[in-house]
């Protein structure tokens, strides 16, 4: 009000009537007209600027068009009026997120007027290149407000302004930091969701200029400018294939990698330099910068088609960050998450990494370098034992630490996707004839005997081991078959199961001695050990005096064992047989039968496992389906079904998603009735969030695809055929069978035909041969016949001669009056023939 009356005085003189604000503003609006003197217009704008905050609606309604005209006509002529009019417009268009809706709408309304056509936007793009610092700066600020309010409209005009991009990019080289930083800020928002603007930016050299800024500001060690510039780079690349190929082909990726200290041309068999692996991470800004760089490296690691040099270098950089650096835990997690799911570009088993661990009590200032190890080993080690072997977190399960292990587990899962690989890893755990089974860390953790009181790191290791092992077996019948022959070393912790079980405070001993085949029958198989440990865990958690916290840990172990067994026994009748022979059936029944309402998780899993056992119990043995069936009916088929389904409602089960795995531990919140701070000495600092895991997505996914089969399967008569395949797959199998049958029939038919044809061709050959021989025969007989005929002719001639001779002789005889008979003559002829 004070200000208003001053203006009134200025406008009317001290004696005038007091005026309403609206009147004053209207009078000021008149003064904006181009017909007044520039100085008057300037004074009017300054006055309006003073009123705009308190009289936003009136100033907007009465003067907005006038102000925009001033911007259009005067700004470039007179920097002062330009600056003042821009500042007034900023006040009119600003939207305070915390203001009431009506006030916010006003800001949007004014913005819409400003952006009704492209004139103002074009003017602002032009002013970005103005010589006056204040004009430039205010134009940028106004633009940034307009972008915040109506991004798409501004983007539309920006695309049509040929000079806009060039001047904006040029500002990245402005010597005044404040201008440059404002430009970076505008770029961040103007490229958002506009691939076309992103591409023009790339064309205009935005990448190069942004990297110049980053390098010039000390890279990762730089301030928030570096963060903003990196955010722009990410925005230009993330959803833009064209820009990615520009960037990949430019000289910038090596610069990007060297920002985090990773040598771009590091040969594969050369370890990373220490300045990459060990860096100072105290400054939060550096962490923010590094997170952005890692994000972009992750983009470049992904590459359609066969991995090229760049994607391999980036994948390696991510892996090294995650496995062998002192980067903050969440950055490691991010890096491991970004390792492409097709890890074929990265031979994990052959790649060598050199992990570091902090020297205790040096506050992260001294580090020990560990022996070089294969990346695969380092990965498994990280999953099983946590970051730096858990020496920092100790008994705590920090949320960050669990996330990191989860991310590493994801890489392992992808890596063993190929059956050859999972099978080879399982095979390596099998003893070769004449030698002991190798004690791999995975096997060791998997078979660690659970001992009360449980210690958190050990439970976590065993739990992660069950998850790792499930990844190895889930999709591979061959790996399952091989796993059945794993007999962990007798000396390993699982070897003599019960022998090590020493109840802490007089709890029940391990399951009956008759159940302990370790001593009697020599070393146990892995499957036997798991079933034994499961039963140990059930017994332990049934104890009445167990503290809640420890009961939870026993539950966790049960969940781990059960989930692994469910996935192992699925579709593996031989494993079911072995499991049943280990006497495991009884172990499952009791938890299912519990009447407690409190917990649906373990009964649900037990019901599922029981269902799997029933479904796939297809090999002859003592405990047949017929033996199990009465147990199912006694439990109640509906009750079993219900148990199965209710798992789905459990929060711990529901919380798991493809990318979320770790849930907050309830233990992290101290219940209010407990004396706060009392156990503070041993407790973690409150700012460290604790987290825990129960299930992984692979299991949840498995459960979702298969629970229905099991739900149906338990209701089926023991003599029925497997329903495992489910209706749909049964039909699929039936139709495939048909296909096979048809094909077989067809093959048979074709074979017959083929035979017939070849037989026929054989016949032809024979015939041909016969013809040949017959022809030959014919020829010979012809020849013979001819010979005979000739001979006959000859004979006939001879005979004829003889006859005529004889006739002559007879004649002569007759003439000599000797006796001659006609008959005799004939007989003679015949005789002659025979001789």
């Amino acid at each position: 009000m004070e200000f208003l009356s001053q203006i009134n005085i200025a406008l009317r003189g001290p004696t005038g009537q007091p005026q309403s604000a609206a009147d004053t503003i209207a009078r000021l609006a008149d003064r904006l007209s181009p017909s007044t003197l520039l100085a008057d217009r300037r004074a009017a704008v300054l006055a309006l600027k003073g009123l705009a905050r308190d009289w936003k609606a009136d100033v907007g309604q009465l003067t907005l068009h006038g102000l925009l005209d001033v911007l259009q006509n005067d700004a470039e002529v007179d920097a002062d009026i330009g600056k003042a009019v821009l500042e007034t417009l900023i006040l009119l268009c600003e939207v305070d997120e915390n203001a009431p809706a009506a006030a916010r709408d006003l800001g949007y309304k004014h913005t819409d007027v400003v952006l009704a056509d492209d004139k103002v936007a074009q003017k602002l793009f032009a002013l970005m290149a103005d010589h006056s610092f204040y004009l430039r700066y205010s134009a940028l600020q106004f633009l940034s407000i307009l972008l915040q309010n109506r991004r798409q409209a501004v983007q539309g005009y920006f695309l049509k302004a040929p000079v806009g991009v060039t001047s904006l990019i040029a500002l990245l080289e402005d010597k005044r930091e404040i201008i440059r930083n404002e430009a970076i800020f505008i770029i961040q928002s103007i490229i958002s969701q506009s691939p076309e603007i992103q591409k023009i930016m790339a064309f205009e050299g935005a990448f190069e200029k942004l990297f110049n800024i980053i390098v010039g500001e000390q890279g990762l060690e730089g301030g928030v400018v570096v963060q903003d510039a990196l955010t722009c780079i990410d925005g230009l690349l993330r959803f833009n294939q064209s820009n990615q190929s520009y960037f990949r082909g430019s000289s910038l990726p090596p610069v990007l990698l060297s920002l985090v200290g990773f040598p771009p041309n590091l040969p594969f068999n050369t370890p990373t330099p220490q300045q990459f692996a060990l860096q100072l991470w105290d400054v939060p800004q550096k962490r923010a910068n590094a997170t952005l760089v890692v994000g972009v490296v992750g983009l470049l690691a992904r590459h359609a088609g066969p991995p090229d040099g760049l994607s391999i270098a980036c994948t390696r950089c991510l892996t090294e960050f995650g496995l062998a650096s002192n980067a903050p835990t969440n950055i490691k997690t991010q890096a491991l998450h970004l390792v492409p799911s097709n890890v074929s570009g990265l031979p994990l088993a052959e790649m060598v990494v050199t992990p570091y661990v902090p020297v205790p009590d040096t506050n992260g200032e001294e580090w020990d370098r560990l022996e070089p190890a294969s990346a695969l080993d380092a990965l498994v080690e990280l999953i099983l034992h946590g970051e730096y072997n858990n020496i920092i977190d100790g008994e705590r399960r920090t949320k960050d630490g669990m996330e990191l292990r989860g991310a590493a587990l994801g890489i392992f899962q992808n890596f063993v996707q190929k059956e050859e690989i999972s099978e080879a890893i399982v095979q390596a755990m099998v003893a070769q004839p004449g030698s002991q089974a190798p004690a791999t860390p995975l096997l060791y953790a998997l078979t660690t005997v659970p001992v009360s009181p449980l210690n958190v790191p050990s439970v976590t290791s065993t739990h992660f081991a069950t998850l790792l092992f499930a990844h190895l077996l889930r999709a591979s019948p061959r790996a399952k078959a091989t796993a059945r022959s794993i007999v962990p070393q007798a000396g390993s912790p699982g070897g003599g199961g019960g022998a090590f079980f020493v109840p802490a405070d007089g709890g029940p001993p391990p399951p009956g001695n008759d159940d302990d085949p370790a001593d009697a029958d020599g070393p146990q198989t892995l499957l036997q050990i798991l079933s034994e440990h499961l039963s140990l865990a059930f017994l332990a958690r049934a104890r009445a005096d167990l503290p809640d916290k420890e009961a939870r840990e026993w539950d966790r172990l049960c969940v781990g064992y059960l989930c692994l067994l469910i996935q192992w026994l699925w579709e593996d009748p031989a494993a079911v047989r072995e499991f049943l022979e280990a006497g495991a059936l009884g172990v499952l029944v009791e938890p299912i039968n519990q009447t407690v309402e409190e917990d649906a998780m373990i009964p649900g899993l037990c019901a599922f496992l029981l269902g799997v056992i029933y479904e796939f119990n297809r090999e002859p043995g003592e405990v047949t389906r017929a033996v199990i069936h009465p147990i199912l009916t006694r439990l109640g088929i509906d009750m079993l079904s219900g148990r199965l389904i209710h798992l789905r409602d459990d929060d711990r089960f529901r919380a798991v998603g493809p990318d979320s795995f770790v849930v907050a531990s309830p233990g992290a919140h101290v219940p209010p009735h407990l004396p706060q701070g009392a156990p503070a000495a041993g407790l973690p600092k409150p700012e460290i969030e604790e987290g825990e895991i129960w299930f992984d997505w692979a299991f949840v996914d498995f459960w979702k695809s298969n629970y229905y089969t099991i739900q149906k399967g338990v209701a089926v008569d023991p003599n029925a055929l497997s329903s495992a395949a489910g209706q749909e797959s049964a039909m699929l199998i039936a139709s495939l069978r048909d296909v096979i049958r048809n094909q077989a029939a067809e093959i048979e038919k074709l074979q017959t035909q083929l035979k017939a044809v070849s037989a026929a061709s054989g016949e032809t050959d024979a015939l041909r041969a016969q013809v040949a021989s017959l022809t030959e025969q014919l020829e010979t007989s012809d020849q013979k016949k001819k010979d005979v005929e000739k001979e006959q002719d000859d004979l006939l001639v001879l005979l004829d001669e003889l006859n005529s001779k004889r006739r002559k002789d007879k004649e002569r005889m007759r003439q000599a009056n000797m006796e001659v008979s006609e008959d005799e003559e004939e007989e003679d002829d015949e005789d002659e023939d025979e001789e």
Partner: protein
Amino acid sequence: MAGVAWHYVLKFIITGDAAVGKSSLLVRLTDQRFLANPDPTLGVEFGSKLITIPEENKVVKLQCWDTAGTESFRSITRSYYRGAAGCLLVYDVTSRQSFINVRSWLQDVREHADPHLTCILVGNKIDLCADDAGAAAAAGGGPRRKREVSTDEGELWAKEEGLLFVEASAKSGENVEEAFECATRNILEKVRRGVFDDDRSPGVKLSKPSSGVALNEDIRGSCC
């Protein structure tokens, strides 16, 4: 990652009517492939290629922005002229209309591009009328179409407008690299003559050979 080595980075844009074969020329240059049914370009697509100009003993990285010929993208395309060092102005020798429209594309170039931009007029798809050109039965049996713009006419007009000229085929690959090389030579010559020394042309950048890590430097140095 092999150290990338080049002496110059040159920005090219490729413009001209829709479907004259701009994308096909670029794909031929970068991938040595020809697609019978490419999608029309939306906005702009990037492609790059290293070429050597032996007589200058220079390795040049061509950064090519292939633009959309469709009218609706025309204003976006205009944003790309200013920063380019070279421009391929493409028409289809079997489409008179595309040749006529080249005039308006050239007008855009004149209006928005750096005055020193090197422009080459490219008559594409000569494989379709191999017979008319006198080359005996070379068109590989594809559907032959009548040539609607003669070589002489194209060449004459290019000369009048001060453009380089070549006829090419993205399909057969004939003259495709030559088109880019020809323009590149012309640009390098301008560089040698010092045309860009004091002038702002973001389309030409000098790069330290085999500098894996160093940023490219503007050829005009650090004066502005």
